[in-house]
C-alpha cells in the first residue's frame, strides 16, 4: 500500500492553506502557487509511472478494510487525468501572471485555483461514491469563488444562476446516493460493482442510473442540462475560463464514464442507448451554438459542449475502440481547450473586444500567433496528425462496431462544423482589413504567449506521438471495460 496517490490532492491543499495567510505579498503568492502546482504535477507523473508498472493503486483511509473504509483508487484512467489536470492548472497559473490583474491576485486568487485542483484531483482519484460528492463540492466551492472573483456586475448576476443550478444538482446527487445506498447497502464503487449484478430487480437500478446521469449531466453540460454553461462561463476573465472549460465539465464526464462502465451495466439496452442519443443531441446543440455567435468566447464555449457529446458517445458504445477513443479524446480535449482559451485570450486583449466583427488583419502584425492558432484549431477539429484525430477515429470506429452507427456519421459530419467554427475565428481575426490593436508591451505578450505555445506543443506531441501514449490509453480503456481489475485491486488490498 502506497500513499503516493494522495499527494496530488494533499500538496495543493497544503500550499493553498499557506497562501491564504498572506494574500497581499504578490511575488510570494506567484512563486508558491507555481511550486504548489508544479510539485503536484511531479507527484502525479510519478504516480502515473507507478500505476503503469505496478497496476491499480488503492489506499483505504485509516486502514479499514476496503468496503468499510473510504477508498482512494488510482487506475490508469484517473492517473492520466490527474496528470492532465495538473499540467493545465500549472499553465493557468503561469498564464494568470500577466492577465488576471493585481487586484484579483491579491484577493485569494491562487488559493482558489489550488483548491479547485484539490477538488478535481480528488474527484478523479476517489473510489467511493459519497466521497465523489464531497470532492465535487470542494471543486464547486472553489469554482463559486472563482466565477464571482472580482465582483463585476455581470459576474455577480451569472454566478447566482451558476450557484443555483449547482445547488439543485448537489441535492439531487445526495438523493441519488441515498437511493443507491438503500438498494445496495454500500457506497464503495468496487463493492457496488460486485453487489449490483446480484440484484434481480434491475428496474429500480435503472432509475438510479438515470438519476446519476441527470446529476453528472448538470456538471458535464449534456444536452438538456447545458443551458447554464454559456452564460456562466462567459463572464469570468480568460484564465479562469480556461481552467473551467478544461477541467470542470470533464469531472462530470469522468463521473459518467466511471459509473456507466463500472457498475451501471445491468440494463445496457436502455441506459447506454439513452446516453448515446443524449450525446448526439449534445453535439448538435453545441454545433448550433458554435455557429450562431460572432463572439470568440461563445464559439469556444459551445465547443466544450460538442466535445462532451463526442466523449460520451464513445462511452455509450461500451466496446474497446469506443472507450479507448473516449479516454484519448478526453485528455486531448482538456489540453486543447485550455490552449484555445489562452489563444483567444491573447486575441481579445489585442483587440480589446471579443466581438469577431470588430477584428481583422492580425496575421500581419502577429504572424506566429496566427499560425499557432491555426494549428490549435486544426487540432480541435481533428485534422490527421494532430491530437483530435486519433481519439475521434477510435470513437467513430467504436460507433460503427457498436449499435449506433448513425451516431458516428453525425460525429464525422459535425467535425466539419467544429472546423468551420474554429477557422471562422482565424478568418475574421487574422485575415481581412487590419483593425487598430491595443498596444501591448513585448514582455507582457511573451508572458502570455510562451505558456500557450508550450501547451500547444504538448497537444501536438500528444497527437503526433499518439503511438507512444497508446499503451497508457489502452491500459485505461482495459480497466474500464474489465471492472474485475478495478474490483480486485480495491477489495483484495
Amino acid at each position: 500500500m502506497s500513499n503516493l496517490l494522495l499527494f496530488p490532492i494533499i500538496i495543493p491543499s497544503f500550499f493553498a492553506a499557506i497562501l491564504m495567510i498572506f494574500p497581499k505579498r504578490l511575488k510570494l503568492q506567484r512563486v508558491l502557487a507555481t511550486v504548489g502546482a508544479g510539485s503536484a504535477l511531479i507527484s502525479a507523473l510519478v504516480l502515473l509511472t507507478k500505476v503503469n508498472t505496478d497496476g491499480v493503486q488503492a489506499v483505504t483511509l485509516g486502514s479499514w478494510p476496503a468496503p468499510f473504509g473510504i477508498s482512494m483508487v488510482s487506475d490508469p484512467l484517473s492517473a492520466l487525468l490527474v496528470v492532465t489536470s495538473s499540467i493545465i492548472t500549472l499553465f493557468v497559473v503561469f498564464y494568470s501572471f500577466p492577465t488576471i490583474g493585481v487586484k484579483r491576485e491579491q484577493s485569494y486568487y491562487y488559493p482558489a485555483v489550488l483548491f479547485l485542483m484539490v477538488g478535481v484531483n480528488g474527484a478523479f482519484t476517489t473510489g467511493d461514491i459519497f466521497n465523489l460528492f464531497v470532492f465535487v463540492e470542494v471543486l464547486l466551492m472553489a469554482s463559486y469563488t472563482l466565477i464571482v472573483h472580482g465582483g463585476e456586475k455581470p459576474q455577480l448576476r451569472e454566478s447566482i444562476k451558476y450557484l443555483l443550478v449547482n445547488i439543485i444538482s448537489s441535492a439531487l446527487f445526495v438523493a441519488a446516493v441515498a437511493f443507491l445506498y438503500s438498494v445496495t447497502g454500500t457506497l464503495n464503487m468496487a463493492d457496488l460493482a460486485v453487489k449490483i449484478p446480484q440484484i434481480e430487480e434491475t428496474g429500480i437500478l435503472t432509475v438510479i442510473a438515470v438519476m446519476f446521469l441527470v446529476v453528472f449531466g448538470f456538471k458535464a453540460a449534456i444536452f438538456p442540462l447545458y443551458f447554464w454553461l454559456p452564460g456562466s462561463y462567459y463572464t469570468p476573465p480568460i484564465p479562469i475560463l480556461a481552467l473551467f472549460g478544461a477541467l470542470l465539465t470533464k469531472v462530470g464526464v469522468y463521473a459518467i464514464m466511471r459509473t456507466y462502465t463500472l457498475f451501471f451495466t445491468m440494463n445496457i439496452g436502455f441506459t447506454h442507448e439513452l446516453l448515446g442519443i443524449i450525446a448526439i443531441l449534445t453535439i448538435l446543440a453545441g454545433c448550433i451554438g458554435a455557429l450562431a455567435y460572432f463572439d470568440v468566447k461563445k464559439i469556444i464555449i459551445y465547443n466544450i459542449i460538442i466535445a462532451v457529446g463526442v466523449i460520451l458517445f464513445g462511452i455509450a458504445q461500451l466496446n474497446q475502440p469506443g472507450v479507448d477513443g473516449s479516454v484519448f479524446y478526453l485528455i486531448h480535449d482538456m489540453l486543447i481547450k485550455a490552449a484555445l482559451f489562452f489563444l483567444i485570450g491573447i486575441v481579445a486583449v489585442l483587440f480589446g473586444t471579443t466581438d469577431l466583427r470588430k477584428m481583422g488583419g492580425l496575421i500581419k502584425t502577429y504572424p506566429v500567433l496566427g499560425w499557432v492558432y491555426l494549428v490549435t484549431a486544426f487540432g480541435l477539429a481533428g485534422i490527421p496528425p494532430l491530437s483530435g484525430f486519433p481519439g475521434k477515429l477510435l470513437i467513430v470506429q467504436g460507433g460503427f462496431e457498436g449499435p449506433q452507427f448513425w451516431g458516428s456519421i453525425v460525429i464525422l459530419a459535425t467535425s466539419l462544423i467544429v472546423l468551420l467554427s474554429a477557422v471562422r475565428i482565424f478568418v475574421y481575426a487574422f485575415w481581412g482589413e487590419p483593425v487598430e490593436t491595443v498596444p501591448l508591451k513585448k514582455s507582457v505578450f511573451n508572458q502570455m504567449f510562451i505558456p500557450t505555445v508550450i501547451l500547444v506543443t504538448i497537444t501536438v506531441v500528444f497527437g503526433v506521438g499518439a503511438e507512444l501514449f497508446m499503451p497508457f490509453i489502452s491500459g485505461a480503456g482495459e480497466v474500464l471495460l474489465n471492472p474485475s481489475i478495478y474490483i480486485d485491486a480495491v477489495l483484495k488490498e
Partner: protein
Amino acid sequence: MEIIMSVAIGFLFMAAVYLMLSKSLIRIIIGTGLLSHGAHLLLLTMGGLGGNSPPVVTDGVSVSDYADPLPQALILTAIVISFAVTSFFLVLAYRSYQELGTDNMELLRGTEDYE
C-alpha cells in the same frame, strides 16, 4: 415511520420547488435550504429507521437491532457542505443586491447585454 418520513421529505421537496420558482432571491435561497433538508432526511430514511441499540457488536445484539451508523456520518458531511454553500449564497445575494440594486430574478435576465 418510514411512511411519515417519506411524506415529510416529499413536502420539503415540494415547498423547495415552489420557493425556488419565485422571483425573489431570498425566497430562492430559503428554497435551496429546504431542498437540501429534504435530501438529508432522504439519506437518513434510506439507511433504514428503527433499532435502539448503539452500533456496537456485543453479545445478544443482532444486526437488526441497531441503527445504521453510516447515513448519520453521510448526513453530517452533507449538512456541513450545504451550510457552507448556503452561507456563500447569502453573501453573494447581499453583494449582488448592493451592486445590481435588485433581488428580483426577472430583472437579472438576459445574457447578451453585459453592461
